[in-house]
């Protein structure tokens, strides 16, 4: 069954029960006064009354619980209206009786009984309504313990309904004990007044008024029911016998009285509570304020408002110097001219303790500020706003009373400021993260472009096989290798390393590629090649950058390698005839070191004739200078030994073993430099067809 249906059914049932109560009671009275056996059991009217009350109870239980938002004054207002209607009806009946005067009708017991029963019904409605609301209030922010006590109380109260219709009579004193028990439980429950704390000043006044009126109704009804009833008139329903109603009146009255007193005593402190609540809300606003698409200005505005309301400042400003030298202001009850007056005065007179940290903030500023004509301020409090260890602005608060800021409020402002700082910092970090993300994307593109600069396939010769391997420490690197077929017999090969690593190295590497591709076509000697490359490169290299490189021109017709070294790591050569490995030691100078025509003096031309199974290993210093955890370098000896150990393998395999050995030496695959290796192995010339 939905709640709506229950509410309607219970209302209808309550009305029917009340009617039945009225009629059975009247009938019983009639038959009694006429000495007729009515055939109705004496307990029937009371049973009907109890059923009526039980239905009312269900009705209000659902009705009050349906109210979703807990607005306490609204709840009180509801029962106030119920009470008002009930009292009005009851008063009308009284007026009617009074108007009858001492006519016989006024003495008619049936009429008096009817009125009494109507009154009883009205009281019951009002009491049950009050009870339901009191329940809601008492159980506001309930604990498990409280809920247990309440449930016990409620069941005990419900049981009293049954008590009334027991088929046998218990002594009057039992009822009294029962009432006392219920009242004691009610008293215990009446101390639960948490809801009062959440009323603001205005609501408290309203509640006081409403509760006073509710108390008035309760008094009036108490008076109507207990006061002027001639016990002889009503037979079946002496109210004193109704444990339920007596206990209910006592409980509702007690709680109303308690609430009234508690609200009254809470009135003076309510402004403090409201302020604290507002501080909490402000904190929340400060911490939630900036979304990526919003501006920092919002945070400063909230900070200003929060600070002003927290210390009840008469004026305030936030000053944010911009990068272009101008200043952004957020103001509250103060204009630019006044701000400047105060600032200049403080600067001029070297007053410490306002806008500098590490000093006592509670300085007496009265005598200083008094000198500023036209301004009524007598105390000032300043705070730095620091984001990412950088001061980005100041917050200043002004008051028209001397010594207006105490330690307590100073601390609150401090926390407000730090919360705002956190918000701004988060906002900035978030924006930075977005920018960084974009840079990362850009770098990925650069990486793609750069990897396309290194050839997939090197121009080989029928005389040799070649295998290349290159890894950059960052997204992009400065290592370079390339090859170019000059003619049928000659292939030019280059390996290079731009000093430094990362983006700047990568740019120079791409220049190197351009230089190589243009010069390679000219069929120069290796020395002239380097001399021209030096001239070309020197014009665009930074002052502290250089490029080391070695060029090889492999001539198939003469079975020779012509090579020149420009400061690059010495090439390792394996002579298959002698079974020896040597590093070529020849003179050279890095490109870009000497940016004049004298460069060629430092370059040599070297020649080496080759035989099948000779192996040539080109590499960059990322390999020889790779360090293990102890700080030892991979070194030339280890490189030579590794190559020698695998000399009979294919270039690809030799290379694989070399990289494996390198990683096992360093203990990691992440080497903090770009590293490259090119391995050539000469072979038998295939039978010419």
């Amino acid at each position, binding site marked *: 069954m939905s709640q709506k249906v229950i509410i309607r059914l219970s209302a209808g049932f309550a009305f029917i029960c009340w009617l039945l109560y009225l009629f059975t009671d009247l009938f019983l009275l009639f038959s009694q006064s006429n000495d007729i056996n009515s055939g109705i059991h004496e307990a029937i009217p009371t049973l009907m009354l109890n059923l009526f009350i039980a239905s009312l109870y269900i009705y209000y239980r659902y009705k009050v619980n349906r109210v979703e938002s807990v607005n306490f004054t609204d709840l009180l207002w509801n029962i106030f209206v119920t009470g008002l209607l009930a009292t009005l009806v009851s008063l009308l009946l009284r007026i009617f009786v009074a108007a009858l005067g001492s006519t016989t009708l006024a003495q008619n017991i049936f009429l008096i009984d009817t009125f009494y029963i109507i009154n009883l019904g009205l009281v019951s409605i009002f009491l049950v309504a009050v009870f339901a609301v009191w329940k809601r209030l008492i159980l506001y922010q309930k604990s498990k313990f409280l809920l247990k006590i309440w449930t016990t109380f409620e069941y005990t109260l419900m049981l009293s309904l049954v008590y009334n219709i027991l088929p046998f009579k218990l002594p009057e004193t039992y009822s009294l004990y029962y009432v006392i028990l219920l009242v004691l439980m009610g008293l215990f429950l009446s101390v639960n007044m948490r809801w009062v704390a959440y009323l603001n000043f205005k609501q408290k006044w309203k509640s006081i008024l409403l509760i006073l009126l509710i108390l008035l109704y309760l008094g009036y009804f108490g008076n109507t029911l207990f006061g002027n009833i001639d016990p002889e008139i009503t037979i079946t329903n002496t109210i004193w016998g109704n444990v339920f109603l007596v206990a209910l009146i006592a409980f509702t009255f007690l709680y109303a009285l308690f609430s009234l007193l508690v609200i009254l005593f809470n009135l003076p402190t309510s402004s403090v509570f409201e302020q604290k609540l507002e501080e909490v809300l402000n904190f929340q606003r400060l911490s939630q304020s900036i979304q990526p698409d919003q501006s920092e200005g919002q945070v400063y505005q909230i900070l200003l408002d929060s600070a002003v309301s927290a210390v009840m400042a008469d004026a305030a400003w936030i000053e944010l110097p911009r990068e272009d030298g101008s200043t952004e202001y957020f103001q509250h009850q103060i204009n630019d001219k006044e701000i400047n007056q105060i600032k200049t005065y403080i600067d001029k007179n070297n007053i410490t303790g306002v806008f500098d940290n590490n000093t006592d903030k509670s300085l007496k500023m009265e005598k200083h500020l008094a000198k500023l004509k036209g301004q009524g301020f007598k105390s000032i409090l300043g705070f730095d706003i620091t984001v990412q260890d950088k001061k980005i602005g100041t917050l200043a608060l002004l008051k028209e009373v001397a010594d207006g800021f105490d330690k307590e409020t100073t601390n609150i402002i401090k926390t407000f400021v730090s919360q705002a700082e956190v918000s701004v910092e988060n906002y900035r970090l978030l924006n930075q993260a977005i920018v960084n993300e974009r840079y990362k994307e850009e770098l990925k593109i650069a990486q793609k472009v750069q990897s396309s600069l290194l050839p997939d396939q090197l121009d080989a010769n029928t005389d040799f096989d070649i295998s290349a391997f290159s890894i950059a420490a960052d997204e992009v690197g400065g290592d370079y290798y390339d090859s170019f077929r000059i003619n049928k017999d000659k292939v030019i090969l280059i390996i290079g*390393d731009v000093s*430094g690593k990362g983006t700047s190295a990568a740019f120079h590497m791409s220049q190197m590629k351009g230089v190589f591709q243009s010069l390679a076509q000219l069929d120069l000697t290796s020395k002239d090649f380097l001399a021209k490359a030096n001239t070309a490169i020197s014009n665009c290299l930074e002052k502290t950058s250089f490029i*080391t490189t070695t060029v090889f021109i492999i001539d198939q017709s003469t079975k020779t390698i012509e090579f020149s070294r420009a*400061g690059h790591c010495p090439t390792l050569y394996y002579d298959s005839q002698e079974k020896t490995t040597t590093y070529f030691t020849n003179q050279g100078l*890095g490109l870009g070191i000497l940016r004049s025509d004298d460069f060629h003096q430092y370059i040599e031309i070297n020649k080496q004739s080759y035989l099948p199974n000779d192996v040539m290993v080109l590499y960059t*210093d990322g390999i020889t200078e790779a360090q293990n955890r102890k700080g030892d370098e991979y070194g030339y000896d280890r490189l030579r030994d590794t190559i020698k150990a695998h000399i009979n393998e294919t270039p690809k395999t030799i290379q694989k073993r070399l990289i494996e050995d390198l990683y096992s030496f360093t203990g990691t695959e992440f080497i903090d430099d770009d590293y490259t290796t090119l391995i050539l192995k000469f072979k038998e010339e295939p039978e010419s067809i």
Partner: protein
Amino acid sequence: MIDIKTIKEDDILILNVVGDVDASSSIELDTALKAAIESKEGKILVDCANLNYISSAGLGVFMSYIQDIKANNIKLVICGLSEKVYNVFEILGLHQLLTIKSTTVDAKAYLNEV
């Protein structure tokens, strides 16, 4: 990590380089060398006896002052290089453009030559 102390001994400006010269610490080396060269002292001795490692960025610093030294007629000598560090200079070819002596005594003798 690098620590450079500049001291004046008679008419020689001595730069004592201690530690590693990598990409970040090369800036300190650059500052010290620049100050030494701009001080218009005719004789500069860079003592690298306690230099453990030099990266290409560090070499770049030495390289960038070769022309300034020549233009200003400054006598600059590097001494005390470990075998490993000297090897790095040699491979790049810098030993042909910079005066490198094995000991401070040799270096001072070279500086005091007329």
